[in-house]
């Protein structure tokens, strides 16, 4: 058995899965302020639905939006230093140069420049100067820095200086957390550095959360490893989650998409997750979300770590419905969480998309008699408007003229018709309301390579094979069962003007988590 938990802003969902992936039990609880409380409630809720032996649980997978929310709300961020190795290059654009001032303040951001860095081909820009690093360390200590982000120019090509600088700093500042950029982002110095500084600022919070998760899971008598789900749909063990909190930022939409794939059995599809305020549309390719290829802005900071490509449109269960006849509009304004007070079917006075769904007979929520008098033409037009906006969003996310199945999940998915123009049938899997938790529970382990390779004439296949093998090795090192590892993506971009066939190659491999055998397999029903 395994347990998947998704800690959302409002609800904490949990599922208990059998080893073959079937859902044994599912619950929804309110999210608590301290995360742990919601998890304790979710675990006891599962136990209540279907009694199970905690010793039979082989893994607990948790998805949480807690870390990204902490950044957006600028709370509990550690005093952080950004150390960049690259002098005399890069000096004019110091770390955090493009940050909103509010967030620089929130992390008490201090920027340090030092010698180091590599050229694109691995030559050094300048040698590392350990005395310089020690002077910076002394200044960091004097200013109460508790977490450091180290970024060296072209560290995705050569990691040496980041690793050596980390050793020097660790010796000087033994209690300070250190984050290294080559482990976090891609080529693109400012964006990679930004992601690393954000990661560093969240390290203390991450430690506290991970400890809280451990305590609450152990409190339920479960002695299984805990994993956090990451942006790309793969798993992080708790030690990695402590070190790389940024990797969990987009796990919410990712989990919901992957859960939709498992529930529907369709692994290449568009997923429409209809919530209260928005509908999020993403695309799954072989069970994994397509990634955004451009920089992604988080809380106003440009970053370049892996995030799913998601298009949000302002249509959800709480969307306002206004106008008459052909002028009917749905959204983007919404009553949001006030739906239960303001919608007509709940005794309120605002016409919402939920009222339209009830009036049309698609949903049975609240008091249907309160919408019995709605003009049928208005209801029909509003539903058509919702269907055409969602169909358009799906079409924008498609990557070819090939038909792409649509899987609808989320509480508001009753708003969608059974058929979308241009997209075809809409699949609505069972358990769609807990797709997030299921997505967390079925996450796999990944390994990745993103580097500039030099490709000599005739050696392309060889170089690609090397990159593939390296990605697969990394997946196994991260805990994947070697028998299940497969290469998911190979992306190859030749770099203009560079000599020697310089080509940036990205390879992603994934495999099933290698689970330790359970001490007892039996489920006590």
């Amino acid at each position: 058995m395994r347990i998947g938990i998704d800690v959302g802003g409002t609800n904490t969902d949990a599922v208990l899965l059998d080893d073959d992936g079937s859902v044994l039990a599912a619950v929804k609880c309110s999210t608590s302020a301290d995360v742990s409380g919601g998890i304790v409630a979710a675990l006891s809720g599962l136990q209540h639905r279907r009694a199970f032996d905690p010793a039979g649980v082989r893994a607990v997978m948790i998805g949480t939006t807690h870390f990204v929310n902490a950044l957006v709300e600028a709370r509990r961020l550690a005093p952080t230093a950004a150390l960049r190795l690259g002098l005399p290059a890069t000096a004019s654009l110091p770390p955090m140069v493009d940050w909103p001032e509010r967030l620089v303040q929130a992390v008490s951001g201090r920027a340090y420049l030092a010698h180091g860095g590599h050229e694109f081909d691995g030559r050094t820009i300048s040698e590392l100067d350990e005395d310089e690093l020690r002077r910076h360390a002394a200044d960091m200590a004097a200013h109460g820095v508790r977490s450091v982000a180290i970024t060296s120019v072209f560290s995705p090509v050569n990691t040496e200086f980041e690793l050596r600088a980390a050793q020097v700093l660790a010796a000087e500042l033994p209690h300070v957390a250190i984050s290294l950029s080559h482990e976090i982002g891609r080529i693109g110095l400012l964006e990679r550095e930004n992601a690393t500084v954000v990661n560093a600022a969240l390290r203390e919070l991450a430690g506290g959360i991970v400890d809280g998760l451990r305590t609450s899971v152990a409190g339920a008598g479960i002695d299984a490893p805990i994993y956090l789900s990451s942006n790309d749909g793969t798993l992080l063990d708790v030690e990695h989650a402590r070190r790389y909190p940024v990797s969990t930022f987009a796990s919410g939409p990712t989990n919901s998409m992957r859960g939709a794939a498992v529930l529907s059995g369709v692994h290449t599809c568009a997923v429409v997750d209809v919530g209260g305020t928005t509908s999020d549309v993403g695309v799954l390719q072989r069970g994994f979300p397509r990634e955004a290829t451009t920089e992604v802005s988080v809380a106003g900071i440009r970053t370049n770590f892996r995030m799913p490509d998601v298009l949000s449109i302002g249509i959800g269960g709480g969307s306002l419905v206004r106008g008459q006849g052909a002028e009917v509009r749905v959204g983007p304004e919404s009553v949001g969480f006030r739906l239960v007070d303001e919608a007509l079917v709940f005794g309120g006075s605002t016409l919402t998309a939920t009222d339209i769904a009830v009036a049309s007979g698609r949903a049975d929520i609240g008091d249907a008699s309160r919408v019995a008098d709605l003009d049928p033409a208005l209801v029909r037009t509003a539903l058509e408007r919702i269907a055409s906006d969602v169909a358009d969003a799906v079409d924008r996310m498609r990557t070819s003229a090939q038909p792409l199945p649509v899987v609808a999940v989320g509480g508001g998915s009753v708003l969608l018709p059974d058929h979308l123009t241009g997209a075809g049938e809409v699949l609505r899997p069972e358990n769609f309301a807990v797709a997030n938790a299921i997505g967390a529970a079925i996450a796999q382990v990944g390994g990745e390579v993103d580097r500039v390779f030099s490709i000599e004439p005739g050696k392309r296949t060889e170089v690609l094979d090397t990159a593939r093998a390296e990605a697969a090795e990394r997946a196994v090192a991260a805990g994947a069962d070697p028998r299940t590892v497969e290469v998911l993506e190979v992306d190859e971009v030749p770099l203009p003007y560079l000599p020697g066939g310089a080509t940036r190659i990205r390879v992603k491999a994934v495999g099933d988590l290698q689970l330790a055998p359970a001490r007892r397999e039996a489920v006590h029903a």
Partner: protein
Amino acid sequence: MPDTRGGTRTGTRVELDDLADIGRGAAVLGTGGGGDPHIGGLLAGAAVRAHGPVDLTPLADLPDDAVVLPVAMMGAPTVMVEKLPSTDQVGRAIRVLTDHLGLEVTHLACIEAGGVNSLIPFVGAAELGLPLLDADGMGRAFPELQMVLPTVYGIRGTPMSIVDEKGNSGVLDTVDNRWAERFARSVTIDMGCSAMISDYWMTGAQARQALVPGTLSLAARIGRTLTAARTSGDPAGAVADLLGGTVLFTGKITDVARRTTTGFARGEARLDGTGPDAGSELLLEFQNEFLVAVRDGRTVSTVPDLICALDTQTGEAVRTEGMRYGHRVTVLAAPCDERWHSPAGLALAGPRVFGYESDPVRATPGPLPTPTEANR
């Protein structure tokens, strides 16, 4: 950047807030190449913050005996986003050349209005307190150093300076501008594929003859138009109107093929038409820039005219390396500076120079002729 020209012939002043518009417009003039102006914008912003705004001088106001020095970044855009250039590198590129020439520079200039090089000269102008010409050497982006209108007018690209961030510098003197490209490229690679250069120094009289006037203020206008059109809905159409060009195609990228030959990232993208273009296909051939557009088997526009791809929704320019499956783009074509269509201009940057067996096809404003009309 308020237009203060009115009846007098004074220039305009570029403030910090104008740089983003110039960068956004320069990305359009980059025709898919020229590098991401984001870093250029940050560098120019740092310089303007430190030293104050930059005065733009209209080309027509330039005295004959002015000493004009263009300054630019040379190298791989991918390297520039990692090994960020320094603002002092720009100033050094200028000083190395003026010291060598023994000349007092009066105006800085932009050699390439498309992409990152539209913004690099602002760094030097702010730092050295010099006016910047509202003009450039091509009116768009091209990949090689000799592909500028000054070459057409017999202006020598050398002596040129080239400097790296470590303090190394050199002055090249070559027999012609192609050799300048060749040597500068080798030195740039040794410098770590990112260098600052100052080349094509010229007098005011030469600059008035050989440069394309008004391109920096044009970039700013394109940027402002894109911002305004975001709410009105048709950014690509608004930009096409501004450039006197035409929208070629609206569609979705269905295939991108890339290959590297002779140092350039060559490739082609296929688009399936949407809306009024449904049922048609557009093939975009690119090297660093978009060079040829073929609609349903018929070539509808080629270099040296500008072929620009814009995100259909936001209007932001799409660069060739950012072309990907599924992206909704609107492709427009706009006339380049007329002088590129002279025999000397085409010999420097016509379709055959880039390896296409095609005569140049001019972009014309208004609706395209139907295939039957065109074949008659």
